């Protein structure tokens, strides 16, 4: 509301315009006639384009355009648009008097009153333009990286609400981008893993990092595979308001290896404890049958070596099975090769792979037989001969190995034989049947020891499950 009593002089519109134009040093403001000839040129224009008012008045204003834009008639087009629409916005490279360029944004408007030309307001936007370019390049780099690495990449709000998923995610899960947005992506997560997947977001807000291991459904076969999913805020300073970027890495094989490792560790522990228990049992059994500490020491050490031979055969064996021929040979060789090369010993039989449990029990039994033979039997006497032969008996639910240990040419009157009988015969006549379901027969005949052992052996070496 204006009061007539106030005799304040208001500036005329022309005056006001002039003041504004002259004081606007950051804005280039100039006018041109309908053909583009400059009719006014302010200080801002002088600063921005490098041409003085004197140089420009009466000259063609198109010099501020780049040669390429001039050739493409950019200035004429701009004037046509301004006339048709009342204004023409313009973001482009401009050229200064010295030839250097800057990114300018301008507005061209027709001078309405007498329609005798246009006014143009322009300013230097190079800094902003560079920043925008930089951002675009960064985004481009991010997309390139996010779409070319094997990981599945996504952008998300800080609560798990997804805003983008990489093509790898779409290809792996078969969920389209639209289907994955929001919480649609949960559809690809194993139902059992969804609670952990979601509660991990609560923890992520506290720690600033999202982490979960969960199963993701693979589209082409419907299998679930283990993935490790991590996400971090793009801007650490404001994790609650900014997007987070996440990666999902396939750790399925790794988890498989870890699981197998746990199984193997448990198996190893079990075996070790069992071997120690066997050692304990051998020790106390040997104590029971030893007349002196000296006798115990010799016997115990010898049995321990037999056990350790089987263990090292098992450790070297594939599939945890031991070749019967190797086992027999190792046991006899351990007692000196006296017989092996002189024709005293004959070993024959088809290829047989013994499961671990059978190998251990049989190895200890063979040890007792061999020790006995070396001390009192076929390997202790010049005329003695030893034949170890076996065959495979099929046609039963479980095939059996029938092994015969046959000593000949032994004078059985040799003293001491019964001493060995105790522990060795216990192993053969009781341990093998108890542990392996074997049928055994041990005889001390007129020509020497004869021992028949029939052990059921599964076709394939058993693989023990822990």
């Amino acid at each position, binding site marked *: 509301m204006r009061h007539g009593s106030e005799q304040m002089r208001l500036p005329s519109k022309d005056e006001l315009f002039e003041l504004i134009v002259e004081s606007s040093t950051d804005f280039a403001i100039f006018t041109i006639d309908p053909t583009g000839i400059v009719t006014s040129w302010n200080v801002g224009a002088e600063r921005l384009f490098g041409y003085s008012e004197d140089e420009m008045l009466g000259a063609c204003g198109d010099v501020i355009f780049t040669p390429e834009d001039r050739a493409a008639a950019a200035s004429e087009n701009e004037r046509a648009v301004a006339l048709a629409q009342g204004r023409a916005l313009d973001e482009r490279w401009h050229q200064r008097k010295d030839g250097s360029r800057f990114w300018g944004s301008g507005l061209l408007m027709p001078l309405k009153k007498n329609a005798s030309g246009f006014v143009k307001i322009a300013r230097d936007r190079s800094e902003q333009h560079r920043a925008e370019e930089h951002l675009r390049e960064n985004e481009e780099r991010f997309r390139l990286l996010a779409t070319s690495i094997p990981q599945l990449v996504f952008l998300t709000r800080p609560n798990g609400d997804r805003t983008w998923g990489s093509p790898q995610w779409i290809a792996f899960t078969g969920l389209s981008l639209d289907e994955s947005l929001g919480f649609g992506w949960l559809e690809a997560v194993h139902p059992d893993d969804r609670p952990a997947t979601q509660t991990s977001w609560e923890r992520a807000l506290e720690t600033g990092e999202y982490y979960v291991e969960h199963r993701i459904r693979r589209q082409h076969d419907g299998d679930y595979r283990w993935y490790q999913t991590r996400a971090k805020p793009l801007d650490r300073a404001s994790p609650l308001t900014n997007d987070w970027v996440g990666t999902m890495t396939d750790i399925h094989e790794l988890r498989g290896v870890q699981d197998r490792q746990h199984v193997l560790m448990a198996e190893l*522990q079990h075996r*070790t*404890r069992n071997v120690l*228990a066997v050692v*304990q*049992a051998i020790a106390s059994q040997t104590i029971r049958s030893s007349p002196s500490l000296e006798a115990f020491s010799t016997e115990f050490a010898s049995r321990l070596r037999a056990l350790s031979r089987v263990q090292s055969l098992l450790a070297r064996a594939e599939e945890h099975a031991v070749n019967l021929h190797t086992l027999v040979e190792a046991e006899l060789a351990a007692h000196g090769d006296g017989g092996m090369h002189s024709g005293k010993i004959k070993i024959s039989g088809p290829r047989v792979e013994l499961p671990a449990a059978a190998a251990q029990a049989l190895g200890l039994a063979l040890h007792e037989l061999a020790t006995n033979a070396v001390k009192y039997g076929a390997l202790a006497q010049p005329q003695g001969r030893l034949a170890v032969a076996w065959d495979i008996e099929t046609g039963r639910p479980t095939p059996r190995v029938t092994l015969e240990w046959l000593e000949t040419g032994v004078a059985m009157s040799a003293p001491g034989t019964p001493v060995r009988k105790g522990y060795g015969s216990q192993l053969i006549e009781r*341990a093998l049947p108890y*542990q392996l379901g074997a049928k055994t027969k041990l005889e001390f005949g007129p020509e020497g020891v004869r021992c028949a052992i029939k052990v059921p052996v599964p076709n394939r070496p058993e693989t023990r499950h822990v």
Partner: protein
Amino acid sequence: MSEPTQPNIKGRRLLIVEDDYLIAADLAGSLEDLGVKVIGPAGSVEDALDLVESDGGQLDGAVLDVNLRDQRVYPVAQALAERGIPFVFTTGYDAVAIPEAYASTPRCEKPVDKLQLARWLSEAGSQK
């Protein structure tokens, strides 16, 4: 620290379930030395269950090896528990591998401390 009491399990009827003959025979021998009447040993779940059923009423306790080749001994443990017969486990495993239901069952890790085992059997028997 009080002197650990010498376990008195003389005359008890104890079942041994253990698939390794050497270990079973050794354990049986040691328990027999303490005056125990050993039932078994049994090397499989089936054999052990047979012994529990035929001797069930008179068993005073049992020593169970958790792992019997391809089997676990838990069916035997359950049969014993149903009859109120106390038992202890022998095992090559860490505690984590034992099911929750048997978390409070005494456990001798292999190789077995026979004196400790006998003490447990003695205590378990006296609570029967």
